[in-house]
Structures are given as C-alpha cells and as structure tokens.
C-alpha cells in the first residue's frame, strides 16, 4: 500500500513538474519552470515534515509527490547545457538560485 502511495504521489509530482516546465521553461533562456518546481516542492516537503505525522500519508506526500515534483537530474543537466552553450555565468546563477530558493522555501514550509 505504501509503495502504491509513493507511485501515485510520484506520478502527480512529475506531472505537475512537467506542466510547470512546459508552461514556464520551454523556449526561454532560463528554466523558470524547473526553478518553480524545485522551490515549490521544497516548501511542500517542509510543510509535510512539520505537519504530517510519519506514516503512509507522509510517505505519499513527501517521498512520492515532493520527491518527484523536485528533480536533481534536470538541474545537473541544465547546468551542463548552460556551460556547453558558453553561458558559464548563467550556469553559476542557475546553481546558486536553485539552492538559495530551495533552502529558503523549505524553511518557510517548516515554519508556516
């Protein structure tokens, strides 16, 4: 049952991230959609860990939904793509902005 929850949460999270990327990243010079997904997902995980007791619901929301809404592989690959395009400054900005916003969003989620 827990794994079914993780599957459903992961399916929802990945779909929401894809919608954000399709609406706010495609054709733009900065991957705003991915940034929104990582920041929103980090805030949501803070909310979940602070307010939902350990159990199937926390696993569904945390490991499933928040885990799949956020992504590290696309973040790494986008960094490499900026660098390969010669936009090394943007690669640095991309790295730092995700981390700064992600940490701030997680803290915000915990404290709300």
């Amino acid at each position, binding site marked *: 049952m827990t794994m079914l929850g993780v599957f459903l949460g992961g399916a929802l999270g990945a779909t929401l991230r894809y919608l954000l990327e399709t609406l706010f990243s495609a054709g733009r010079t900065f991957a705003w959609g991915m940034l929104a997904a990582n920041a929103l997902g980090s805030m949501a995980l803070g909310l979940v860990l602070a307010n939902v007791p350990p159990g199937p619901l926390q696993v569904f929301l*945390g490991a499933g939904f928040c*885990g799949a809404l956020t992504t590290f592989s696309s973040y790494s690959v986008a960094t490499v793509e900026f660098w390969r395009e010669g936009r090394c400054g943007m690669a640095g900005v991309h*790295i730092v902005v995700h981390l700064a916003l992600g940490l701030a969003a997680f803290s915000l989620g915990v404290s709300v």
Partner: protein
Amino acid sequence: MPRPGGGRAPSALSPVVLGLVALGGGIGAVLRHALTLAVAGHSVAVILVINIVGSGVLGGLSARLARPDAPFWLRPVFGVGLLGGFTTFSSVMADAAAAGPAGGAVQILVQVVTCVPAAALGHGLVARGKPVGEGR
C-alpha cells in the same frame, strides 16, 4: 521530417504524453523510495548516489534527445518522468537543513560537485559514441 515508426508525435500537453510522464514519475519515485528503505539509516548517502546516477543517465539521454530521430516518448517517460522522479531536490534541502549550516553546506556542495560532472560525463559518452547527424 518523418518520425521513426511513422505518424506525428503527440503535442506536449496531450493525454498520452502526460500519462507517460506520470508513469515514469511513479516508477522513479518507487525506485528511489525502495532504495532508501533498503539502505535504511543512510538516506543522505543513498540520495547522493541516486542523484549522481540519475544525473549521469539523464546527461547521456540529453545527448540522445538532441538527435532528430529521438522518438517522442523518450523524453516524457524516461527524462522527465523516470529520471526526474528518481532524483530529488527537496530531500537534499531537508537533509541539509537538518544538518545545520556547516554540515548542510558540505552536503549541498558534495551534491553539486558530483552530480554536475556526472551529467557532463553522461552527455560526453553518448555524444562521442554517436555523433550528431550520423544517425544510429
């Protein structure tokens, strides 16, 4: 340009593509969660390995996707879904916050200095093995 297998690729927001993303994302999340359970008590290290492997494979996949003969389902199901859902950013933030300023900074730095080169390596291996324009 004709696509492999014929027919037109579905649009970005078609139900088929969204379904492929959801399927891949669900499987990726289950794989990640199963690995964290299998190596219980070492979630920081497990997530690091997951993110390194996922970044490397997606790096290689990005080189494959850059070629015009990439099938339409490849990015939604494997790139966005499976690898996007397998790797995670929110757990990294949670573990870093729990570790305090110094420990958290080290954790994040290790993630970045391992996963980004892994993505570059994956891209380089696939791009070198099958240069753009030379087909399969």
